[in-house]
């Protein structure tokens, strides 16, 4: 079976990633310079964490390419709550760097959903990264929520924040221009938005599209994950 890879979309994703990766590299260079000036070890911790996030960005891109070449993706029952808690733990240090309040909000308990664990983890980490680094105007508190709620079709799980301007229309426009423009979501973020479009690509490979959504009065991006029918019967 021949698998077709949308090379145009991959090229745009690669360009967005290349723009995005400049940011952690500049941070590392300047943190290293600052640590020489101040003879402080504090910057070294930041360098370590910033480099880790840059590697995650690249790994997520490679995973998205790999998934696009797969005839079928292995799905397994996954706990949404556990995935969001793990993601929050992974992003905790980054949130501190950006002076951002990170919160996990789950309304009740959910049945396991059918997903590819690795892709889902990578997708929410990338989304979280994109939301944390996009600070809202000073009048608004910088808060990011990893949230889930039930819907008729399944469990809606996503990342939500206090950044204004993230409408369904802005997201649609972003999908059309990312990679060809330096800023995928200029209304929301100064960066390329690679994290968001990587998450979209990873979720699309599980046939769970990313959509604009709301949770606890915050706008964000979420995917509707289908619950495991088999486990429901048990």
């Amino acid at each position, binding site marked *: 079976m021949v698998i077709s890879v949308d090379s145009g979309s991959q090229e745009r994703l690669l360009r967005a990633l290349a723009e995005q990766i400049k940011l952690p590299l500049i*941070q590392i260079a300047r943190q290293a*310079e600052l640590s020489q000036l101040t003879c402080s070890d504090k910057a070294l911790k930041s360098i370590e964490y910033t480099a880790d996030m840059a590697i995650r960005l690249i790994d997520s891109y490679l995973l998205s390419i790999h998934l696009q070449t797969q005839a079928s993706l292995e799905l397994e029952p996954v706990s949404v709550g556990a995935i969001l808690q793990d993601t929050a733990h992974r992003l905790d240090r980054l949130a501190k*760097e950006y002076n951002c309040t990170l919160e996990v909000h789950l309304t009740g308990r959910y049945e396991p959903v059918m997903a590819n664990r690795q892709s889902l983890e990578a997708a929410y980490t990338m989304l979280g990264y994109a939301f944390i680094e996009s600070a809202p105007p000073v009048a608004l508190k910088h808060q990011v929520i990893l949230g889930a709620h039930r819907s008729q079709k399944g469990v809606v799980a996503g990342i939500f924040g206090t950044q204004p301007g993230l409408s369904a229309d802005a997201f649609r426009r972003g999908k059309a221009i990312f990679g060809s423009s*330096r800023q995928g979501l*200029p209304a929301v973020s100064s960066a390329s938005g690679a994290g968001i479009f990587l998450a979209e690509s990873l979720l699309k490979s599980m046939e769970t599209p990313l959509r604009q959504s709301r949770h606890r009065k915050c706008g964000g991006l979420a995917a509707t994950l289908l619950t495991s029918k088999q486990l429901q019967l048990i």
Partner: protein
Amino acid sequence: MKRVLLIEPDKPLSDIYRSVLVSDGYTVDACAHAQDAVHAADDNRPDIVVLELQLAAHNGIEFIYEFKSYTEWQDIPIVVHSIIPPAAFGMNPRMQRLCGIKHYLYKPATSLKRLRRIILETDLAALGTT
């Protein structure tokens, strides 16, 4: 004490630039958004503006147009310190002069040492004109 208005959308980078400028004796007002920067300038008139052009919501050029539209701020020097290379932005000396940009620094290639030197030079040049 001289006041720098630093418009940098990335918090960790903003913290680094602020810390070196403070150690050089400047008072720094750091903002991530163009509109917040206009409010900050309104509260405390800056002596130098250090500006990233790639911002959320309003870009840096929009900020420059608004900033320079106020007569009391027209003589404040602007140092662009951006992730956008000058060539990609189509920036040439004439356009730079028209926008009131004293220096255009490409952020990935600008060390802290160079940034500090350019700000000091801009500061001294401004002293010479007043």
